[in-house]
């Protein structure tokens, strides 16, 4: 394990112009007017990333995660603090940002490679891989301005992942491309992980972080509020999101409902595969509320096994203590630990009213012969 990125006390302050005087005349006429405001996008952030690590950087919009990423990539200079980086770094900040529409795809591959800091010789060596990965063989000598947006992005992604970086920095770029290409990207990221490279991955999509990252860092308002194992950090992220949402909620609805605990009649969360289970969810409500109820089950690797809700029959919460029962008639899961998230959402399912991340963990024991995630009970015979 070698540290590849070391961030030490990074702060970034932006000057926000309320009235911009950018022309010479305006500058001369109003030398001191036009208010500027200082905005702290990052406050004293410190962390480090080792080889073999995939770190997720989560936070909602405006939390400073993109600013931090840009500082690490060297696009922005931090106002104070230092970042130490070891090894080559390829950043996927905005795919195709360096493309020249007038040039052909071939020329752009070399230009983009040079922008990422890789030599011409190196790009020549991987050129065929890039073209193969991007699947635009027939258009490689076409000017990029005639490309569809998907082709554009695929080519840029193909360059960035094929130049053999030690550190890959990805900023919400996986949202682009069709589903098949996205799967290919995720696949490539997994290969990177297996090869022991470091990946810094920015998103506000908790599911992606769960699926890819070993560790997650949570930013909020320019402050680092969590740095730890993915599920730990995501729990803090979700709860923090709820807290800050509650602050902005005028009706006071969000603060009035909280999920206290999940219990089982026996008190144990161990279950044999194929057996049923019953949960009691204890909810404290300060007012009457009628909404939907959601339960999610995840594997420890972050794979969503199941998401289910109250199926149209609302949960009516009374003021005071409430108990919502969940019956699982049969759990066909195989050996392993599964995390349970529960939450109350509004009837249309748009707004989360109360959420409890990792409210319980169930331990399933299975002694059959099937492998994988669920027991389907397949019977194999010759006909």
């Amino acid at each position, binding site marked *: 394990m*070698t540290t*590849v990125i070391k961030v030490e006390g990074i702060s970034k302050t*932006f*000057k*926000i*112009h309320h009235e911009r005087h*950018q*022309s*010479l*005349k305006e*500058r001369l006429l109003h030398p001191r007017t036009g208010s500027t405001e200082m905005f702290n996008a990052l406050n004293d952030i410190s962390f480090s990333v080792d*080889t*073999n*690590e*995939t770190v997720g950087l989560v936070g909602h919009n405006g939390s400073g995660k993109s600013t931090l990423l840009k*500082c*690490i*990539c*060297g*696009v*922005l*200079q*931090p*106002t*104070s*603090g*230092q*970042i*130490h*980086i*070891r*090894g080559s770094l390829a*950043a996927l*900040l*905005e795919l195709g*940002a*360096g493309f*020249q529409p*007038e*040039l052909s795809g071939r*020329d752009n591959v*070399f*230009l983009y490679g*040079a*922008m*990422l*800091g890789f*030599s*011409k010789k190196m790009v020549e060596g991987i050129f065929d891989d890039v073209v193969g990965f991007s699947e635009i063989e027939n258009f490689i000598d076409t*000017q990029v301005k005639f490309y569809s947006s998907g082709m554009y992005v695929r080519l840029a992604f193909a360059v960035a992942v094929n130049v053999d970086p*030690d550190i890959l920095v990805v900023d919400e770029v996986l949202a682009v491309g069709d589903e098949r290409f996205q799967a290919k990207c995720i696949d490539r990221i997994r290969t990177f*992980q*297996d*090869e*022991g*490279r470091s990946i810094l991955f920015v998103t506000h999509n908790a599911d992606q972080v769960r699926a890819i990252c*070993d560790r997650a860092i949570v930013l909020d308002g320019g402050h680092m509020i969590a740095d730890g*194992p*993915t599920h730990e950090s995501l729990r803090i992220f979700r709860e923090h999101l709820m807290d800050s949402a509650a602050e902005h909620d005028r009706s006071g609805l969000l603060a009035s409902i909280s999920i206290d605990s999940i219990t089982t009649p026996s008190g144990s969360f161990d279950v044999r595969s194929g057996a049923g289970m019953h949960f009691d969810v204890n909810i404290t409500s300060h007012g009457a509320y009628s909404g939907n109820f959601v339960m999610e089950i995840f594997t420890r*690797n972050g794979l969503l096994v199941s998401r289910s809700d109250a199926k149209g029959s609302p949960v009516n919460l009374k003021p005071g203590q409430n108990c919502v029962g969940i019956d699982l008639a049969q759990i066909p899961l195989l050996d392993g630990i599964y995390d349970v998230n529960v939450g109350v959402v509004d009837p249309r399912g748009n707004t989360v009213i109360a959420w409890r991340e990792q409210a319980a963990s169930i331990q399933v024991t299975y002694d059959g012969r099937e492998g994988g995630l669920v027991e389907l009970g397949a019977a194999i015979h010759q006909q």
Partner: protein
Amino acid sequence: MSDGSSTRVDRRSLEDDAFRVVSARDSLATRLRNLWNRRELLFSLIRSDIRIKYKNSALGIVWSMLTPSLFLAIYWLVFAKFLKNGIPNFVVYLFAGMVVWNMFNTSLSTATGVIVVRSGLVKKVSFPREILALANVGAATFYFFIQLCVFGLYLLVVQHSPDYAYFWLLPIAFAALYFFTAALAILMSAITVYMRDMEHFILIILQLWFFMSPIVYSYEHSIAPQLHAHGLAWLYFLNPITLIMLTFQRTFYVATYAASTTQTQIVNHHVVPVILKILPSWPMSTYCYLDLALLGIMIVFFLLAEVLFGHLQGNFESEL
């Protein structure tokens, strides 16, 4: 995923790699080293600059020779024929000055707005930002050499041989020109981010500058007598372009003209005085010392511009 990581293999030990530091202020040495490390990007940008400029145009790169040639023809017509500025063999004189001027003019007029124009790139990709301006200077340097070749061909055609003894001064003068142009280009590109007027302002400045340089007239012939009378000859040499042009003109224009007296029957025995009036009658050593001194000053100016650029670029993201 903790159990998965133990099976991964370290593909390449990074322990021996040195840390790169990103911090609020980089020292000049660090900035120059970064610049040197990214020279491949510089060349890629220059190449793409040149390609894009002539992409989809039928004549392509020929334009980089055609445009200056047309200007040359117009200036020759206006200044030698209509205004009768009295410089014999004016096209060679004009050509020598225009080659230098085009390099300076093209660089500055393209580099001034380049960071604003390519703000999308500046905000998304990490590289030393001055490379954008330097790429424009690089492209102009490429056109400079093409025009120099055309100039050479022209000299062959008209059988005007330059003063080969002065040739070794040209690299020094060119280096001074390069550093001066590059320094101004990166400074202007940064200033334009804060004052967008510069993009238009520079065009006027360049127009004035053109006439402050001895291109379409002769310094020694038209300017020097008046300035010498007031002891202000040094004033004209505050323009670094002047000395560079004089070196080019001295090399390409003067000597051969003295040798080919037979061509000019009108001036006949007055040939030598005429030449002395058109270019300063310095010995070669004076040219050498002046050019070397200028080169030294321009390198210092370039470093200064680098430092200033470093200060100015800290706030680019709030202005772009």
